[in-house]
């Protein structure tokens, strides 16, 4: 009877790109359906909506348009901060991806972050200035390097630009875009196609690999669908494990599910590069983002541990 009380449908918000590979795997291999069935929930349907960016995803989850969404750490922290204590409180469901945000440049004069100080005719492209995870990462790097009052000193070099457009601008070289804060597949392309050099990576700032993409959902949904919730968690853990075990098949699955310009071999190469991406369910290196956002006033609640903004059900996974 408890099965009848739970939802018969799970709705996911998906986005384009390699970072969301676990979700793609869970969906294509029908892992959620499988685990729901195993949990005795009968046939559940999975509905996937594709979104172009984080803003729409947040709206979708808050307005109840989707049940699970995947996104970066700063958006999760903000959602958690604003909804804390309410019945739509949002917390992380499970970590999907560890990934690096890397700053690349084609400017021969730029070797380290110090070289940006006072630079002319040189702009850093990132998805959106000030509010994107890349912008936060840059500020954290600047803070670490130049001190707390200089955290945003590089902001005036940044411009908002979608990844593909920034990549095209770097490639053409005719625009002032000389640096690009990229993730896969653009970081791979930047190195391979135009020999851009890495200035630093978010792993340098965090002091090791950190969680980049997490799945999150609301308290309400979790409380109403406890078994289904567990089935989703299990499905995504299995997806992570499967990618780890079958990287080649995972690359092919991705290639078939999206019109990627890269071959399956290239994709395999990308997801095998541990300095770029790892599909892991442990939560690492997220608290420094929380500390930074709290310091700058973007979130009001300071979590004491990552467990504050992840559901108890994933606390069994490692984290720090």
């Amino acid at each position, binding site marked *: 009877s408890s099965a009848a009380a739970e939802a018969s449908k799970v709705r996911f918000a998906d986005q384009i790109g390699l970072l969301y590979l676990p979700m793609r795997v869970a969906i294509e291999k029908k892992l959620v359906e499988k685990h729901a069935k195993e949990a005795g929930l009968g046939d559940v349907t999975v509905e996937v*909506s594709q979104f172009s960016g984080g*803003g729409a995803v947040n709206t979708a989850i808050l307005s109840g348009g989707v049940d699970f969404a995947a996104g970066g750490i700063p958006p999760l922290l903000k959602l958690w901060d604003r909804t804390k204590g309410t019945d739509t409180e949002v917390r992380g469901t499970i970590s999907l991806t560890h990934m690096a945000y890397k700053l690349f440049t084609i400017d021969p004069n730029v070797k380290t972050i110090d070289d940006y100080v006072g630079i002319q005719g040189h702009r850093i492209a990132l998805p959106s200035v000030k509010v994107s995870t890349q912008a936060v990462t840059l500020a954290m790097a600047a803070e670490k390097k130049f001190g707390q009052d200089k955290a945003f000193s590089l902001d005036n070099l940044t411009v908002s630009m979608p990844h593909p457009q920034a990549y095209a601008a770097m490639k053409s070289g005719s625009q002032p875009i000389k640096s690009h804060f990229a993730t896969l597949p653009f970081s791979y392309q930047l190195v391979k196609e135009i020999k851009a050099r890495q200035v630093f990576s978010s792993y340098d700032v965090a002091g090791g690999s950190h969680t980049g993409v997490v799945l999150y959902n609301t308290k309400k949904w979790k409380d109403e669908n406890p078994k289904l919730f567990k089935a989703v968690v299990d499905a995504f853990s299995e997806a992570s494990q499967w990618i780890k075990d079958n990287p080649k098949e995972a690359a092919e699955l991705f290639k078939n599910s999206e019109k990627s310009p890269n071959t399956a071999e290239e994709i395999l190469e990308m997801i095998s590069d541990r300095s770029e991406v790892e599909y892991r369910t442990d939560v690492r290196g997220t608290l420094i983002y929380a500390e930074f956002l709290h310091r700058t006033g973007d979130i009001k609640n300071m979590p004491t541990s990552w467990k504050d903004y992840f559901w108890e059900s994933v606390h069994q996974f490692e984290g720090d």
Partner: protein
Amino acid sequence: MSIEVIGARTPEGIVLRPEYERPVETKPDAKDVTRKLSTWEHIIGNEMVRKAAVVALVLIAWQLYTDLADVQPLVFPSVVDTLKALFASMMDGELFLRVWGSLKVLLAGYAIGMGLAALLTVFAVSSRFGSDVLSTLTAMFNPLPAIALLPLSMLWFGLGSPSLIFVMVHSVLWAVALNTHSGFRSVSETQRMVGRNYGLKGVRLVAKVLIPAAFASILTGMKIGWAFAWRTLIAAELVFGANQGGGGLGWYIFENSQNLNTDRVFAGLLTVMLIGVLVESGFRAIEKRTVQRWGMQR
């Protein structure tokens, strides 16, 4: 009549000439007076050729620009590349699917928007307060970007087409209502009086007198509404993305831009432009049969 010197001027300065009178010549019969136009004259009125020339000119200018300025094809592909991508996308049937996906939603949004605009303007012409309501609501809501409405739209209509239709109605409604209302207000007072003389009031007056009399303005509103429906749909699809593997032309454009298929992005945009030209021909045909035929517009 007294005899005077023909050709000379009278004291008042008028040149004198003889009078004459003549019979009316062979009365041209009805057929001659109202002769049918020749086929050639019919053809010359056709403007398809001239419009095709404009489209061709735009394409040539584009090709020349990309050739000469040597821009990065990733930023701005040439016409040739774009056309190739267009054919490829047409061949594998994807483009048609996408266009159809968008058109369905578009037509629904457009139709509903027009309907609401009609309601609102009928309300607006019926009283001074109605007119104030229309102008104030338009002033308030028209400047709001669709993106700002998306959250509400998702809240009320969920993630599917209804949400898209909602934001599209928003972009069609105000433009059409503004033009229609302004057209109504410009209708000649005499024609309005004629309509009322024959017992027309309210909705019937609007339907039988105001709408045809303001048809030129309404058509303009419809053209603008159509264009803005496209704009909004594409922009909204970019944000909303696709549902269950569906998705229209906007998503096609976004997906391809993410995957660095700039030629396909431009193929998508070119499709929008060509559909625009097609629809414009439709509007033009309506114009010719209505306002132009009625002598209300050149």
